[in-house]
């Protein structure tokens, strides 16, 4: 995609600045423009916009956003087309290193040097980072050959190198499952995927199409307990875990391999959020936001995986559209929707985003369940709304559209989100 809108001169003030040009940033920039904001700047650290989509070469994207099943790079292309139509300033190879609470943004890029500019509003769309070995404290030696699945994906899909010849994957998140297939197709022996929990963390479709299709074993309730190798990984030990997820070391066994890929979850990249001292939700690791994704610092919005970890890029685009539109409104000094209803996670719900709702406009509530329910499930939004769904599982985010009508009479209330098996409700 030609970046025809690379700016010739950076303005000293923008209406809306969007940090990150992945699915969230691309969508937010377009929405801000559609809302009437004129001077919009989008900044990305990579040489081309698209974010992590560019290395997610598999399909499964776009069914909601573009009404077709496309790959990650195609999704990025389609999203970027919308941006280019809108004449947004796109600055690539650029980092936002600092933002002050009065919205002065510091940028660094080899082309444009180090500069500062002011912005009317800011959309943080910086995505997530991967949890690493240190985050889960895998004991053992520290040889080369332990790599996060996302980094391996970048090496394989963008640069044409393999992470090793015989790989074990820890964690059954979607990136891990996708990489199991990807590596197998590239001639790497994938010896197994190990998952601490009793269920897969990734989508069922990926378990079937990435593992079962290729006879790659998935070991549930099993984890890596030791890593051996002075130079390169030579062998790892795995062991089943008990009901409290404690490894049963007496039942461990060794696997000879040269690579251990980690797909043990994503964490919102809250670097800017911390710098801006935004209120963070310990459940998501991202900022606390209103129904328009505005954070605790007025004028600062968050969308995408730095707000909470989404399962589909499509949801990210939708959420970012709300953030971008509101960021445009704020920059233009328009009225903010009242935030007069609070939402909070209840039974079997790990977190809810956003944290407040408005009785003035429509919004979407997103949440994740803690435990899978394989059967009819009732979703409750306090007493305001309930909806029956066929099943809920932790890997799949659940969304509920909430219109002002549904919230009629609930202003000032706190609504609890529950996900309860229908049979339990009836009994």
């Amino acid at each position, binding site marked *: 995609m*030609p970046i025809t809108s690379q700016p010739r001169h950076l303005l000293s003030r923008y209406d809306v600045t969007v940090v990150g040009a992945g699915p969230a940033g691309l969508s937010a920039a377009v929405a801000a423009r559609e809302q009437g904001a004129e001077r919009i700047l989008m900044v990305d650290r990579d040489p081309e916009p698209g974010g992590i989509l560019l290395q997610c070469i598999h399909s499964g994207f776009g069914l909601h956003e573009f009404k077709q099943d496309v790959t990650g790079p195609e999704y990025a*292309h389609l999203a970027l087309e919308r941006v280019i139509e809108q004449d947004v300033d796109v600055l690539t190879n650029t980092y936002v290193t600092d933002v002050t609470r009065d919205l002065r943004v510091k940028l660094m890029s080899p082309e444009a040097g180090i500069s500062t500019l002011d912005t009317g509003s800011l959309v943080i769309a910086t995505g997530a980072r991967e949890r690493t070995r240190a985050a889960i404290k895998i004991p053992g030696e520290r040889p080369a050959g332990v790599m996060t699945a996302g980094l391996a994906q970048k090496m394989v899909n963008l640069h044409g190198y393999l992470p090793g010849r015989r790989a074990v994957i820890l964690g059954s998140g979607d990136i891990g499952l996708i990489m199991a297939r990807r590596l197998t*197709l590239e001639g790497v022996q994938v010896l197994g995927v190990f998952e601490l929990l009793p269920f897969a963390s990734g989508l069922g479709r990926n378990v079937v199409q990435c593992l079962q299709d290729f006879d790659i074993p998935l070991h549930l309730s099993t984890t890596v307990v030791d890593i051996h190798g002075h130079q390169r990984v030579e062998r790892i030990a795995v062991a089943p875990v008990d009901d409290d997820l404690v490894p049963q070391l007496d039942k461990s066994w060794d696997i000879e391999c040269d690579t251990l890929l980690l797909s043990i979850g994503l964490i919102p990249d809250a670097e800017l959020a911390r710098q801006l001292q935004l209120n963070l939700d310990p459940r998501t690791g991202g900022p606390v936001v209103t129904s328009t994704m505005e954070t605790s610092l007025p004028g600062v919005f968050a969308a995408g995986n730095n707000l909470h970890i989404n399962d589909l890029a499509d949801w990210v685009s939708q959420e970012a559209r709300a953030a971008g539109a509101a960021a445009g409104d704020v920059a233009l000094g328009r009225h903010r929707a009242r935030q007069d209803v609070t939402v909070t996670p209840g039974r079997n719900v790990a977190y809810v985003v956003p944290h407040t709702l408005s009785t003035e406009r429509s919004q979407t509530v997103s949440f994740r369940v803690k435990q899978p329910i394989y059967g009819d499930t009732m979703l409750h939004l306090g007493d305001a709304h309930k909806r029956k769904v066929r099943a809920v599982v932790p890997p799949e985010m659940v969304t509920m559209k909430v219109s002002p009508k549904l919230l009629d009479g609930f202003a000032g209330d706190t609504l609890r989100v529950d996900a309860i098996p229908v049979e339990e409700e009836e009994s």
Partner: protein
Amino acid sequence: MTERTRAPDQHAGDEAETFVYLCTSCPLGCRLEVDAMDGDVIEVRGHSCKRGIKYGTQEHSDPRRAVSTTVWLHGGPCERLPVRAAEPVPKAQVREFVRSLSGLVVEAPVAFGAVLATDVAGTGIDLIATREIVAEREREPVG
């Protein structure tokens, strides 16, 4: 271990055989039982909705997969170009489809959706680029 959801190769006979598939149409993940005789699907059980019948029938009689991979790219911003099969590939031919692309090198620029190869591995299916790669000089920053 997840349950193996594929039955062994069917053998000819008069009696219907039962094959098990995990439906991937929605998070429910229904365990579908597909009765078939001589390759023809007789009945699908275990589904919770109509999509299950369609999935079970398709998965038994003609399983296909979306295939995406990468090929070498010369003169681009990175070394690999993402590509995909223009339509779903029969499941049994997925490995061969990808393997046959080994060593393929594409020169920049590349148009979005450009057909890079036809009838890949005898499948009759085209290979298309999923990323646009502009010529080097156009990537130079304007500012």
